[in-house]
């Protein structure tokens, strides 16, 4: 339990998130290649975390601001949620879908906020990917987040091209894709309590997390 946890969770998630956060910055460049966008954005997010001592000390409001301003604009959160919910998404009402998206967003934000504060001297390296069609509207971008000492963490992104440019719709940390991992959980929750059951479970979890304070990691 510890090995995997350690690998996937600790600093790794922090940097990963930071890196994904970075994508927000490329907003004005709709025809930028997905690689360039990820590269610029990740580097920039890592830089801004380093520059903000309040984030390093775990100030939740600063972390939240960073996420809202720099990460969220580059994520297609509707699609992320759809992807995680799986087939039941199609049977959910629009209100249910909106609630799911909102609660899932809060959950991920709370979970990862603590990780961002652990970014120190990490650098982003791009990993070349083979066999991708440059004209495609779907792209895989692979990166390696390298600390000055210790093992590098792989962070991969799946992006889709929209009118507003490339948007991230899935994130892979050390080979573990977020969407796929949540899908099993969500599917079994829906099997037991329906879509409303899942919404309730997420809402309860979020209110518990918020009661225990955002600073906790």
């Amino acid at each position, binding site marked *: *339990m*510890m*090995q*995997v*946890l*350690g*690998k*996937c*969770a*600790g*600093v790794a*998630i922090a940097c990963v998130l930071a890196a994904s956060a970075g994508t927000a910055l490329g907003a004005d460049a709709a025809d930028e290649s997905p690689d360039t966008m990820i590269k610029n954005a990740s580097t920039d997010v890592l830089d801004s975390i380093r520059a903000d001592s309040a984030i390093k000390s775990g100030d939740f409001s600063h972390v939240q601001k960073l996420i809202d301003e720099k990460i969220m604009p580059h994520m297609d959160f509707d*699609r992320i949620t*759809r*992807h*995680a*919910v*799986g*087939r*039941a998404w*199609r049977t959910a009402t629009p209100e249910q879908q909106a609630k799911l998206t909102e609660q899932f967003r809060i*959950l*991920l934000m*709370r*979970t990862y906020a*603590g*990780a961002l504060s*652990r970014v120190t001297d990490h650098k982003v390296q791009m*990993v070349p990917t*083979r066999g991708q069609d440059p004209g495609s509207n779907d792209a895989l971008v*692979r990166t390696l987040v390298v600390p000055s*000492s*210790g*093992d*590098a963490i*792989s962070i991969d992104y799946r992006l*889709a091209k929209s009118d507003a440019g490339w948007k991230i719709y899935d994130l892979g940390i*050390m*080979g*573990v*894709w977020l*969407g*796929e*991992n949540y*899908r*099993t*959980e*969500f*599917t*079994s*929750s*829906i*099997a*037991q309590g329906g879509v409303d059951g899942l919404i309730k*479970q*997420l809402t309860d*979890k979020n209110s518990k*997390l918020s009661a225990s304070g955002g600073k*906790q*990691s």
Partner: protein
Amino acid sequence: MNLPSFLRRGGAWCAAFACLSWLGGCASVPPGAGSNPKDPYEKFNRQVYSFNDHFDRAILKPVATGYQQVVPRGLRDCIDNAFNNIGEVGNFVNSSLQLKPLDAASDVGRLAINSTIGLLGCFDVANGMGIRRNKQDFGLTMGKWGIPSGPYLVLPILGPSSVRDGIGEIPDYFTDPVNYVTPTLDSYEIYVGRLVERRAQLLDASGLLDQAALDPYAFLRDAYLQRRRSRVYDGNPPREQDDDGDEDDGPTPSKPAAGSPTAQPGGESPAPATVKPQAAPESGDAKPAGAPQ
């Protein structure tokens, strides 16, 4: 060789299982456990998971926290590097078995550089020279050879594994230089030290799993299986068929996905040749597949 010590260790595992069957009663097993084709032993696994969790809370985490508080950072890094350095032996064996000469060469290079210039592994000098650690084990080697992972398996203390990776622990044990430390008592001390040291590294991450997951057991299982699959393919696994709500996928054929509610409990067990966990706790717990409740 140290076969007797291996057997003695087996005895320790049996003892662990005895405790386990006692503690296992606390494990909450959700309805439908075992219906996921990747995890037919779910009921058993959840009990081991619960045992590990109790063990961690009661013993390992407090000890690791104490270690972190008492031992200064520099010394902890040194100890961590030294353990990693010892691990290069196993990395080299497995890189070779996977026919990766470049990796094998860098494993040997790291071992040579860090054992000498790095003062018996205390400093990871090779990393600074751009020779990165390439962690390998026999489970990954078997995966490279085309052996599927088999069902998910939670091992006592060691945590998430699979039938393949669990079997891989045995060759890993023999390629671990610590196994050849004499007297045997010293090697036990090193094992315990390593466990505490590894746990201390993860203290920052504690709670993250509980925070992120609705069901930490399932979340960790899926993360483990995904990660191992990705590693077997050197980070480039073929994409699995998505069965999700994306409209871009068009109407998806209704093939039950892993863990899908439509997967029938009581269907025939997909379990390949398996290791029966020794000293399985209570009746039926180690029985393959989701037998109907």
